[in-house]
Structure formats: C-alpha cells, structure tokens
C-alpha cells in the first residue's frame, strides 16, 4: 500500500490507473484464491477466442461450432496442449464487422485469450485481421474466402485455413477447360465474393483455353435474386456453358426457375461451393444433375483420417458433418498444433510456429505456407447427382490446395511490405 501511495505522487496519471487496476486485480486474485477457486498454474486452461456469425448464418456456423467443440474434446482428452487444457470461447458477431471488433476486443482484454480465430464473411475477416495486427495477436481465419486476406491486405498476424476463392475457381476452371463449350456466361452475387470468383475463374479458364468467349454476365443482389428474370436474361445470350457463384436461397430459386424453364437442358454448369452439404442438401429432389462443383461428399470419403473424424462426429452429435464441421474441427486442430509447436502462448512464438506448420485434418495433412500464411487445405471437385431424392456428389476427387496456389516467391510478392 505504501509503495502504491508513493507511486501516485511521482508518476503520471496513466501509471496511476495501471496501478489501481493492478491493485484491484491483485485483490481479486487473492479473493478468488481465498474462495477456493482452482489455483492458477498447471490446470489453468489456454483460452482461444472465436468470433463468428452465429445468429446471421446458423446453417453454416452451427455445424462449425460442433466441429470446433469435437476437436476441443479430443485435444483435452489427450492431455491438452503444453500440459494445460484448451478452452475455446465463442462469440457472435451478428454478421457485422463492427460487432466482430467488439467481440474480439472482449475476448482479448477480458478473457485474455491467447489467439483469435473464426469469422465467416470476408469483410468481417478483414476487419478482425486488421484488429489482430493492431493488437499484435495471432488470428487464424477459418472461413473467409477473399484473396485479400492473405495477399493484398495480408499481415504478419493473420493465417487462413480454407482454400480461397481463386484456389477453388482454379480447381473448377481446370475441369471447365475440358468441356467443348466456347461461349460462356456467368452468374454471381453482386458483391466482392461474386466478383472475385468470376474474375479468378475467367483468368484461369482463359489461360487454359484462349479460344473462349465471355458472352454474358448477371449480378443478382445477394439474398434477393429475381430468378425468373435472371434465368431469362441468361438464356437470351445463348451460352454453351455457365459458371455459377450464387449459393444458399438464391441458388435454390435459380435452380428451380432454371429447371422449369429448361435453361439447364444441354447446358453444362460449373458451380462454386454447390457440392457442400450446406447448399446441396436444401436442393433435395430438385438437385440438378451433372453440374461440376466444389464440395464435400461426406458419406463417400474413405480415407482413414476422414473415417475417424466421421465416426467421432456422428457418435457425439448423431448428425452428419457439413463443410462447416470440417472447417471448425481443422481450425481448432491447427490452433492446438500451433501452440504446441510454439511451446508458449507468446504471439511472436505462435507466429513463428505457424509459419510452415503441418497439421493433420480430416482431409489429410495440410501446411500453413510461410510465404503467404495460406493453408494447403483443398476441396473435393466432382459432379452433382440425385440419389433417393437427395443431392450427392459423384465422380469426385480431392484437390490439394497446394497445387492451386502461386509459388511461394510469387505469393509473397502479392503481400504488402
């Protein structure tokens, strides 16, 4: 107490506040120790802060959270990390970047988390990435797909798990190039995800097939497609093939109108994300046949790592995994691996550890590239089909993300200095 008094006289106001806070904190710690809460030390969990659009996008984020919690359970059953259990604290951002910053701030300053992870929307991911850089904390972006996150807006503190828009577009372009079609049209939601997906696909396909002509494009408002008019407008330009980026309810409407109006008769369609259970399952008996898609055929993947994941997931939840589940699970496993390799929760050590780290996921081993902080997680590319009134993927194969990324030197040059 005496030292505190002398301090207030001699130091600046900021120091006073700090001192008061420290004193209060010390008092609180003493009190809680007296009350018999677990002693700080060996059993103190390592906390991971997780922010996602739980209320805005429950169809994706609920399976995601289940994957996250399954991984946490498995990690802790195996003795945790660095001898301490792992605890993930999840927060809803309501789909708004401003609220995501508030949540990240709370996790960081109140819950004292060691690193941040999560987010779904690209702009929310970018906001949290920038926050992470400002606060000097590691951010493991699980889902946001924009290229900007690791390239044009990339920073030292941010790593990204999922294959980006351009990686998935390249995977599809490779298949699209094999089609005889020369006249292509595109339909994509009117925001960055849609525009960058179309741009990446055009680049990749034109590189493979210089003879291709782009004859039409439609940009329906995200979540508010006027499906009839859009289908008709696409039919007008008489394309020989179509690239689709719409998803969710827009996709359902588009497929329904397109099927009835015969747009898809004899029209090959290449479609981003449509093979993911989140978007394929709602189509049910109206799933269009033969679309070339990226996705996740969960029931047909026979690799041992996926079998183990599938069984554990079904045993715990009595439900099948979605892409979100795999992303959540792999994100948590990545976080645990990073902390383990770093040997501490110090941010500098975590970043050093994350660069080039190998992580085992249900899709097989992946690496977070040191050059641009992108993981080499891939996706499945195949065709859609119907089976017993439900949509499935057939003729699929796994594409390793590493094959669709620019070489490290080139990727590093895309990042700000």
């Amino acid at each position, binding site marked *: 107490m005496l030292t505190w008094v002398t301090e207030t006289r001699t130091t600046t106001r900021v120091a006073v506040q700090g001192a008061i806070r420290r004193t209060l904190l010390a008092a609180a710690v003493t009190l809680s120790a007296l009350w018999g809460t677990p002693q700080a030390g060996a059993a103190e969990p390592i906390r991971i802060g997780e922010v996602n659009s739980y209320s805005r996008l429950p169809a994706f984020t609920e399976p995601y959270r289940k994957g996250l919690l399954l991984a946490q359970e498995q990690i802790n059953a195996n003795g945790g990390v660095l001898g301490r259990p792992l605890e993930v604290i999840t927060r*809803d951002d309501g789909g708004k970047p401003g609220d995501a910053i508030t949540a990240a701030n709370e996790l*960081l300053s109140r819950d004292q988390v060691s690193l941040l992870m999560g987010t779904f929307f690209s*702009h929310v991911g970018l906001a949290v990435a920038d926050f992470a850089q400002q606060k000097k904390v590691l951010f493991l972006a699980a889902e946001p797909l924009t290229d900007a996150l690791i390239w044009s807006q990339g920073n030292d503190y941010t790593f990204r798990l999922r294959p980006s828009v351009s990686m998935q577009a390249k995977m599809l372009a490779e298949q699209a190039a094999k089609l005889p079609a020369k006249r292509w049209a595109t339909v994509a939601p009117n925001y*960055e995800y849609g525009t960058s997906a179309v741009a990446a696909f055009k680049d990749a396909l034109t590189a493979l097939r210089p003879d291709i002509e782009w004859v039409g494009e439609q940009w329906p408002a995200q979540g508010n497609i006027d499906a009839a008019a859009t289908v008709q407008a696409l039919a007008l330009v008489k394309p020989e093939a179509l690239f689709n980026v719409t998803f969710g309810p827009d996709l359902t409407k588009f497929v329904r109108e397109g099927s009835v109006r015969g747009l898809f008769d004899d029209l090959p369609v290449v479609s981003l994300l449509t093979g993911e259970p989140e978007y394929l399952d709602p189509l049910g008996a109206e799933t269009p046949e033969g679309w070339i898609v990226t996705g996740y055929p969960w029931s047909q993947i026979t690799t041992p790592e996926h079998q183990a994941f599938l069984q554990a997931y079904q045993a715990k939840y009595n439900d099948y995994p979605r892409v979100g589940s795999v992303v959540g699970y792999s994100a948590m496993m990545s976080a645990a691996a990073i902390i383990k390799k770093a040997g501490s929760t110090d941010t500098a050590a975590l970043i050093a550890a994350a660069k080039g780290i190998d992580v085992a996921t249900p899709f097989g081993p992946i690496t977070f590239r040191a050059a641009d902080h992108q993981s080499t997680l891939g996706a499945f590319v195949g065709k859609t089909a119907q089976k017993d009134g439900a949509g499935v993927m057939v003729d699929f194969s796994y594409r390793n993300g590493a094959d669709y990324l620019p070489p490290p030197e080139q990727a590093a040059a895309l990042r700000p200095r």
Partner: protein
Amino acid sequence: MDFLLVQALNGLASASSLFLVASGLSLIFGVTRIVNFAHGAFYMLGAYGAYSLYRLLLPLLGTGWGFWLALPLTALAVAAVAALVEILILRRLYDAPELLQLLATFGLTLITEDLVLMVWGAEDLLGPRAPGLKGAVSILGQKFPLYDLALLAVGPVVWLALRWWLTRTRWGLLVRAATQDRAMVAALGVNQAWLFTGVFALGVFLAALGGAIQLPRDAIHHGMGLQVIVAVFVVVVIGGLGSISGALLASVLIAELNAFGILLFPRITLVLMFLVMAAVLIVRPSGLLGKPQAPAQAVSPSRPWQPWQPPVRWLLLAAVGLAASAPLWLGDYRLSVASEILIFMLFAASLHLMMGVGGLISFGHAAFFGLGAYGAALSVHWLQAPMGLALLNGPLLAIAGAILLGGFCLRLSGVYLAMLTLAFAQIVWSVLFQGGEWSGGDNGLLGIWPQAWAASPAAFYGLTLAVVVLAILLIRRLSLSPFGYAVRGCRDNPLRAEAIGLPRGPLHWACMVFAGAFAGLAGALYAFLKGSVFPDSVAIPLSVDGLVMVMLGGVQSLTGPVLGALVYKGLSMSLISAVEYWRLILGGLIVVLATALPQGLSGVIDLVRRAPPTGPSTEEPRP
C-alpha cells in the same frame, strides 16, 4: 420480340407476389398509421407455417388438397396471431407518439427471428412444387412456368377483391373513411379498436399468403422477412401510402424495371429500386397515386423545453464527472464499450435533432453516420491525414450529403420524407459498396486506427467523451436557440409558422444539415474506434438502430436518445456476448418497454418530475 414478351410476363409474375405483401402493408398504414416493421416477419411465418402445415396435411389429404389448403389456412392462422398481437400490444400504443409502433414491431421481428430458428432449425427448407402446376407452357417458343402463370392472376384478383371490399361493403367504407380522417370516424361513434384489429389482421393475412405462395419458387430461410420488408416499403411509398391501386402500379413498375434493367445494366440490381423511389418522390411527393396527408408528427406538441434548473445541472455535471472517471475503474474492454455507447448517444441525439426538434422522420440516418465514417477513413487512407483532420473531414462529407439530400426533401413530409432519406442512404451505400478501389468496395477500408496519443482505450475514451459531451451540449444549445424555436414552431404548427414568416423549407434544410454534421462526427469517431469502415455503416440496420434508440428513450426531450442509446446499445452488446438467443431477449425487452413506457425511458423522468405530491390525477378526462 418473343423474348421481350416473356420477360415482361416474368416481371408481372414478380409484381404479383410483391403486390400481395405490399397491399397488406399499405392497408395497415393507411388506416392505423402503424409503420409495421414486422410485416416481413409475418411473411416469413407464412412461408414456414405453410411448409409445416403442408407436411402435416400430406398424409391426410394427399399432395393436391394438402398443398392448396395449407396456403390459405396458414395465412388465416398467422392473421389470428397478428390480431392477438394487435390487441395485446399495439392497441396500447395508439395514443403514444407516432412511430412507437415501429419500435414495438421491431421488437416483434427480433423475437420472430429467433423463434423461427428454434422451431424450424437453421437449414434452408425446400417447399413442394405446386401440384398440377409443376411444368411449363410454351409461350412464343419460350418456356414459362405454369405456377408463374397462376401467380400472374393472383395479383389482379386480390386487387379486384380489395377494391370490391373497400367500395361495396360497410367495413370497407369505414376503412376508407378512417384512412382519410381517423378522428372524424371515431367522433361518429365507430369502434376504432375493432376496426384497427380487423385491418391489421387482414393486412397480415395478405403478407402471410404472400409468403406461403413462395413455397414452390423460393427456398424458405431466415433472411426472407428482412429481405422482403424493405422492397415492400418501397413499393408502398412509390404507390402512395394507403393506396391499393398505387401499390399495384408500383409493384408492376419495380418488377418490370428490374426485369429489363438487368439486361442493360446487370450491376444495377442493388440500387434500382431506390433510384426509382427517389425519382418518383422528387417528382410526386405523395407517391404515384397517394393523396397529400396531414403531416405525420414524430412528436406531439409538448411542454416547451426549459433551460436546466440548478439541481438538474448539478446532477448532469455529476454524471459527466462520473463518466470522466471511468478510466480509473473500468477495464480496457469496458472502456471501448463505453466509447461505443457514447458514439451512439451522439448518433441518436443527432437523429433526435431531426426527429424530435424538427419533426422530420428519417429512415436513413445511417447515411450521415456512414458518410462521416468514410470521410474520416478516406482522408486517412488516401491523404494520410492526421486523426484531427480526419475527424473534421468526416462531418464535412456528411454535411455535403445533408445539403444534397435536404435540397430534395423540401417538398416532402412524414413517411415520404423518411423514405427519401432511406433511398438516399441506400444509394450512398451502393456507391460505396460497388465503389471498387477508391472506397474499398464491400471489403471496406482498413487500418484507420487512432494516432499514438489516442491509441490506448482510456485516451480514446477520454477524447470520445469530450467530443460527445460538447456536441450534445451544442445540440441542446441549438434546440433552445431562436433557430430551435423556429424549427419547433414549424413542427408544431406549420401553417401558423408560415403565416408569421418562418421559412419552413430552409429551416428544415438547415436542421437536416446540423443533424447530418453531428451524425457524421459520430461516424468519424466510430471509424477510429473500430479501425476500419465498411458499407455496413451506411446500411439500413444502423438506421433502424438509431430509430430504436430514440423511440426507446423517448422522443420528447434530448434526455431520451441519450438514455435510449445507453440502454439499447448496452443491452445488445452485453446480450450478444452472454447468450445465444439474444435477439429473443432483446426483442422481448423492447416490446415490454414500448408497451409499458410509451413515452420512452425519459418519459419516466418527466413523470417523476411532474408528479403531483398527492391527490387525484391531474390528467384531463379523455373522451
């Protein structure tokens, strides 16, 4: 040529669905003056309900009857729920300030969203195809779905039915009378309560039916309600509030422009509707077929404001002192939360300057907030401006926006004016959203952090507190200045004000510019608090948040928005971090508060201050 005809039919089919929902909203507004924000929620309930009822009836009646019965039965059920809502909640609010129903129905919307999630789960649902109408017919060589053909007929049939009902039945007669002059209808001895309940239920019936008939075309999902509500408001306003034929005309106009617009400008989808609305309102201030209305009032003329008396002054000084000492007893996170609440106090106060003082309702106040945020962010990003300059540039950009918008608003009043502000906000939003490199598009502008001296949460909080307190004092000073008196005069009695030579238009214009400047200041602070700006800061949800704060706090005095921001922002921020179904709780609290305290939270303070010591109520007897 064939193509054009079929595309025109596509437009008409979309117009038909839109009209069904819009006519309900228009009826409700015309008669009860309720701005029914929950209309979209009822639309969504109609879709979800029909899906479930269909599956329930399927084993009993088979696909055909099951489907065709499920649609109207669901709409009836939802209408019954709506009648209950009207009786239990909205009926208590007819004496309250206008727009308070907006607050209550906003609460209902939040509740519905979480309830739907709890009952029907997170995944999108796929409704059945319409039995008997699954295929397509060939029209001039183009395939056209049979169901869309049926939809084509629904719009005109509903329109005719409504016309007949309004002109040929007694109930319809009363509804038309009430649309024109509620007070007179009441004076003639018509039981308004049941008239309102009936109209509200009928309007919601149309909304729910509109949702249910989407089953064979749409996916049933959580965003349905919010997705439709804005479009429907736009249709109603373009058509003219309360005009059923206007709603039909506007639906056709919007749907056709969209069907053909995307052929020429595929990128126009985001903003087309709002461009049309702005154009229509500028040319015809009451919509296409609407009649000029008695100006809607956000505030009932009230006791004139007085300068603060000494005890209140000391109390306020103590409150500010307490707030200033916060860095001593709040942690970093809570200080950031406090900064955010302060910023929203200023935002709400600026909206109050427009709504409460000026009587100018705004549904697009976020435009100024967002312009402020972008003004600051753009000057940091492109000009490397220091924080002080950026904080100045934010409001400047907002002022520019307000000058532009204010010029177009001169002839408008009431909800029409509110909707023009909404259109303005949406146009600004889409410009920023599709702006490409200079505005960062929807990926926003990053790295807008305060300079070192204000970087710590405590320092930034101090800065925010100083700016916000000064700004709010300035707003109060403005309201009590001759300018404020003049603006309030125009609000309370436009005719008399004009007769004594007060220039209503310029006064309103100036009021909007001041409000815009303060909102812009709040936005600029917000940019530095969050470190980044996105088009979200101009979007509709933020404008709605502002309205909710003002209405929750009470529109009668400046204490209202400040209290409202504190309670609403504080509640939503702590609920979102603490519980999963935060919308359910927040919505419930809003409904309860709106019903229990129609004058807002600050109304309680007024009651306490004015309460007679003892004795009988001093309230005047009501007819």
